[in-house]
């Protein structure tokens, strides 16, 4: 098992290297003059030169590479062009809402999607199965922000049962106020994620119900419900947690949109602000940050296989 853990941890190294290298090359290999694009249409030649200097594009590539790696190695994700603040500081300021939104979304998603997918697999061909499949196709088709605005329109503007926008920290305003403000963003962000996980759970459980050992359990006289709980779900755990991890990438994209729809001052808004301000170092720092988070989460999920599957443990 320790060998598996060690191998798995080491195998993230090339992935991290690729990400770092890719982000480095992106700025250097972009067609045209990135400094000019970042500076915008009304910039003077001096403005462009100043930005180029700030991005460190005037040195030789190996020098830039060395500086880039040394900088990342010391935990520095770069400095914003306009505010001159380190990107890590900006991330620190905006982390809380995004983190909490992601947590509520994952909890909500797993609580809804896994039982729904299991039920659909168990009752294959029934109306509930059709409903789950229909929901998942629809969930993959509605853009996150349109869904957000529909929810705002119906639940906040017409029925007025929930606040329209905004974020209230649980540490300042208390848990219930926080939760009331989180309901709509969480629902918005969850839909596509629920669609993904319910679909995958359904497929995995359905496949496992065809396995020989399920037939063995029936031959023992076990009831269908216990077969589902004890035999099917336990074996479906690995594919399900895998998709939960892969779905994080989907969620990170959704966070940017959801935060801008609901005016939540989190990392997603930071991305958008940086785009509007053409502050490339912030965008770049956030890309690295989100990618590292994604790699870390998926590493943890792979390590969790040792808990679910004895074939890896021994």
């Amino acid at each position: 098992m320790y060998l598996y853990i060690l191998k798995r941890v080491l195998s993230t190294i090339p992935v991290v290297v690729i990400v770092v290298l890719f982000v480095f090359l992106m700025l250097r290999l972009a067609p045209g003059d990135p400094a000019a694009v970042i500076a915008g249409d009304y910039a003077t030649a001096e403005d462009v030169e100043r930005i180029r200097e700030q991005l460190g594009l005037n040195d030789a590539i190996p020098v830039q590479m060395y500086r880039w790696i040394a900088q990342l190695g010391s935990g520095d994700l770069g400095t914003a062009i306009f505010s001159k603040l380190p990107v890590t500081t900006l991330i620190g300021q905006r982390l809380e809402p995004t983190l909490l939104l992601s947590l509520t979304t994952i909890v909500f998603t797993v609580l809804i999607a896994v039982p729904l997918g299991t039920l659909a697999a168990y009752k294959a061909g029934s109306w509930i199965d059709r409903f789950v499949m229909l929901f998942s196709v629809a969930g993959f088709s509605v853009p996150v922000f349109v869904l957000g605005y529909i929810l705002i329109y119906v639940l906040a503007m017409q029925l007025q049962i929930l606040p329209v926008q905004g974020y209230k920290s649980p540490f300042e305003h208390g848990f219930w106020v926080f939760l009331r403000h989180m309901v709509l963003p969480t629902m918005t962000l969850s839909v596509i994620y629920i669609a993904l996980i319910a679909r995958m759970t359904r497929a995995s459980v359905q496949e496992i119900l065809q396995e020989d050992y399920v037939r063995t359990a029936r031959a023992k006289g076990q009831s269908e419900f216990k077969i589902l709980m004890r035999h099917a779900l336990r074996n479906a755990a690995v594919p399900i947690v895998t998709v939960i991890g892969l779905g994080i990438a989907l969620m990170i994209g959704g966070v940017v949109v959801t935060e801008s729809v609901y005016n939540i001052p989190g990392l997603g808004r930071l991305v958008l602000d940086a785009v509007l301000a053409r502050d490339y170092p912030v965008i770049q720092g956030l890309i690295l940050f989100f990618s590292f988070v994604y790699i870390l989460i998926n590493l943890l999920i792979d390590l969790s296989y040792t808990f679910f599957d004895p074939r890896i443990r021994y």
Partner: protein
Amino acid sequence: MTDHAQDAIMADAVLSEHEDPSLLAGMLNNRAIFWGGGLLILFALIAAIGPFLTLDPTELNPIKRLKSPSAEAWFGSDFLGRDIFSRVIYGARVSLVVGIAVALISVGIGLILGLVAGYVRVLDAVIMRTMDGLMSIPAILLAIALISLSGATLGTVILAIVIPEVPRVVRLVRAVVLTVREEPYVEAAIAAGTRLPLILKRHILPNTIAPLIVQATYVCASAMLTESILGFLGAGIPPEIPSWGNIMSEGRTYFQISPWIIFFPGIGLALTVLAVNIVGDGLRDTLDPRIARKI
């Protein structure tokens, strides 16, 4: 990331192959393909012909700002008095062009890289680690960064959406290749002295076609969504072009008074993506009867 489960499922999709003469009939009999495909053809016709029949989608009309939907302007007008109906019709064109272009390009690149990774052992690790790295970068952020570096044009937007879509295709093709190359009939062809290009053409490539068609529809759907999100965030196609994302982006400020500015293009987008996804599911079910039979 290791996701053997996913690879196995992908590979599974390949191994149920019976050259069924009634395949085309089966496809037309499939309700999903029939309705989804029909809807899609309708949207394609609207996108192709519609803009010739409607008003100029960029024509300003300061007197008719933010009008509600009416007989005169079916979908109302925006803050510059432009006709939303005309703009939504034109937006269909942008969405479909982006979706189809991204699907074709990423499937093309992914097919080549996947074949190389599956067949050239030396390059396998390099390609797959690169794909793992690319997959770790959230697609929308990657696209935003690429566009903010190289400027927003239709071309760069398409390219920026293609890059994060490629790894999925590569993994699919590689999984197919690795499964099929172990099949005894491929080994028999090797033993019969068939050269590699012919083995690929006769025995490997035909197995990739069905899963690639299905994958292409999913890529197309996801690309249309990404394009609209980029537009909505103001990081997509230049705002002069009335894409659905751009229309909705401009509607944000006025959402509380004129929600239709967002809803009409939103409905158009959702229906189009839904049609593509439904066709994808239908194709998967007919091209891969083994999974279909379970449903």
